[in-house]
């Protein structure tokens, strides 16, 4: 059987983390091809619904990433995003999803290497814990 390849959805803020992912590209920093980026204007606009939708679809992990607290284009978006993610974690816990599946990171536009490292770490970690329980169920029903 082929090795399990986790699927990751990354919601990245337009100003910092999306730019960091671009920088990883322009600097040719390699990372595993398991992530699909959804561009959002600010991490604070990530509606819990988006994350739940990704898990419902079968994502093994979700990354919500944006500017550092002092760098936000919209003053204090990251603070609000932190609060949303904290609440969301409780919901995921109730749903029986492991904590590691949702990752919240602050990645500045200059941190292409950091972005690549985070994706590498996530892939390794998700490989260890295995496919999302939602994915297994979805496949069983199919």
């Amino acid at each position, binding site marked *: 059987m082929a090795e399990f390849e986790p699927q990751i959805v990354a919601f990245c803020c337009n100003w910092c983390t999306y730019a960091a992912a*671009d920088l990883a590209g322009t600097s*040719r920093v*390699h990372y595993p091809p398991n992530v*699909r980026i959804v561009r959002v204007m600010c991490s604070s606009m990530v509606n819990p619904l988006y994350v739940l939708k*990704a898990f419902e679809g079968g994502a093994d992990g979700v990354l919500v990433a944006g500017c550092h607290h002092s760098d936000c284009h919209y003053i204090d978006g990251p603070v609000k995003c932190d609060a*949303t993610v904290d609440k969301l974690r409780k919901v995921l816990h109730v749903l029986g999803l492991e904590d590691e599946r949702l990752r919240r990171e602050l990645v500045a536009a200059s941190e292409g290497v950091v972005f690549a490292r985070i994706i590498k770490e996530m892939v390794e970690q998700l490989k260890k814990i295995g496919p999302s329980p939602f994915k297994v169920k979805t496949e069983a029903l199919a």
Partner: protein
Amino acid sequence: MEEKDLSHPRIGVFVCHCGINIGAYVNVPDVVEYAKQLPNVVHAERNLFTCSEEGISAIKKGIKEYNLNRVLVASCTPRTHEPLFRAACEEAGLNKYLFEFVNIRDQCSWVHMREPQKATEKAKDLIRMGVAKARLLEPLEEIEIKVAPSALVIGGGVVGMEAALNLARQGFDIHLVEKEPELGGTLRSINKLFPTNQEAVKLIKPLVEQVKSHPKIKTYLSSKVKQVTGFIGNFNVNLDGKGEENKFNVGTIIVAIGADALKPTGQYGYGKMTNVLTQLELEGRMKRGESLGQNVVMINCVGARVPERTYCSRICCMTAIKNAFLIKESNPKAKVWILHRDLMTYGVDFENYYRKAMELGVRFIRYSLERPPEVIGDKKVEKIKVYHELWRREIELPCDMLVLTTPLIPAEDNQDISKMLKVSLDEFGFLLEAHLKLRPVEFAMDGIYICGSARWPTDITEGISQAYAAAAKAAGPLRMGYVKAEAINGFVNEDECSGCGVCEVLCPFQAIELQPRDGKRVSHINEAVCKGCGTCGAACPSGAISMHHFTDEQILAQVEALFS
């Protein structure tokens, strides 16, 4: 221009080889064939460089030939090339917001070079997600807001006057408001200026004359800004002063209200002993030519860089050195000691000035926060006991006058200004700009600018530079006569809105207000003020708020498409 029918999406997909940058790692022909069979895609093609002239004309041609009403380019990154492709769409008669970018170079070929097959699969996924979003894109317009060609400058100190003059000389009508009965601000109490030792009055007097005689500047003395409503382009200002009210409209606002000097009541006998003063009070005595005694001791960092006020006020070291310098210069026999913790002599020529002060005989003694100097005396300070950090022993200094060097602290009015103009304060209570490095003299609120010590303690040179910067920024919209508001902004579905007000609290730009509508209160977003962060939408418990160009439906469609 003829209106395009948008109800049935007709999507054109243009996949870029980017020379070999994408083409060498992603199987572009395969990706194009894949894109062709995606729902609503009526045309897909590949270009060697979509951003080249051929590529751009291919987009324009495609729009006409296939009657496209959505365009998707899969190439480098929107951060560099989105404006170009949007412009191509506009030139072909398609609203630029009907364009979607898919990043298959920076996010794909360049980071997965060793895995071309997986890079190709990823490119297909990203395009499938992009197409799902493109299907739901809607045309948007950037609204134009008219800007009145006048500005309000709050604060008639040297910084406020420089800003007012700068704008007036560019031809704009300026309303300059000063709460004191005279222009000049803190500088009116200052004797001479470092590092030139020029008399402060020689700087202020001509400035005040120029302000008073300038036909474009209207000065309001003993007046305070009572209320400001509106937004960039059209702020309604209400003044309160001398029993009369003044009302006018301005396009932009500059805040130059300065800062206050800390009065260190209770410290080192200040307020109890007769020969203890602050540097600011010393300036007054020196200006009036009063005698200061033979032995002058200055203590720096009184109330600064202490646990309750951790910041360095920057200008005080130089103020102490300047006053010590001037005392020694006029009375070489006087003894002057500066007891300091660290010394900040950071500006142009400041270090030289400090050396000259040492050459004149000013003594510098370093003390530590843990062992501060002690005052000896009853009704008057007679001696100062200090542990000399370098000598490692305690010494006593004779003292006829003790001068306390205190920091600048946020002006009392900062709280009111913050509430009135909806601008932020930092942790100490100074007014806070939008971004320290990217937008240094602008507030997050459009059309409001800051300069001088209202933001952070500045010396005269820095304050004037900031005044020019703020004036330049404030002049931009005034000169244009209009500003364009974000098209990517929030919108409310009033039927869904329960009027809870969470959005109003969370909005970082105070763009949201609850307004009565058909017997209930609903959220209203001011398009001119909204910056489109989308915080309100994510937090809305009723799902009543979404953001143009990043609607819930669009993002959910993107996510769903990944797993379809």
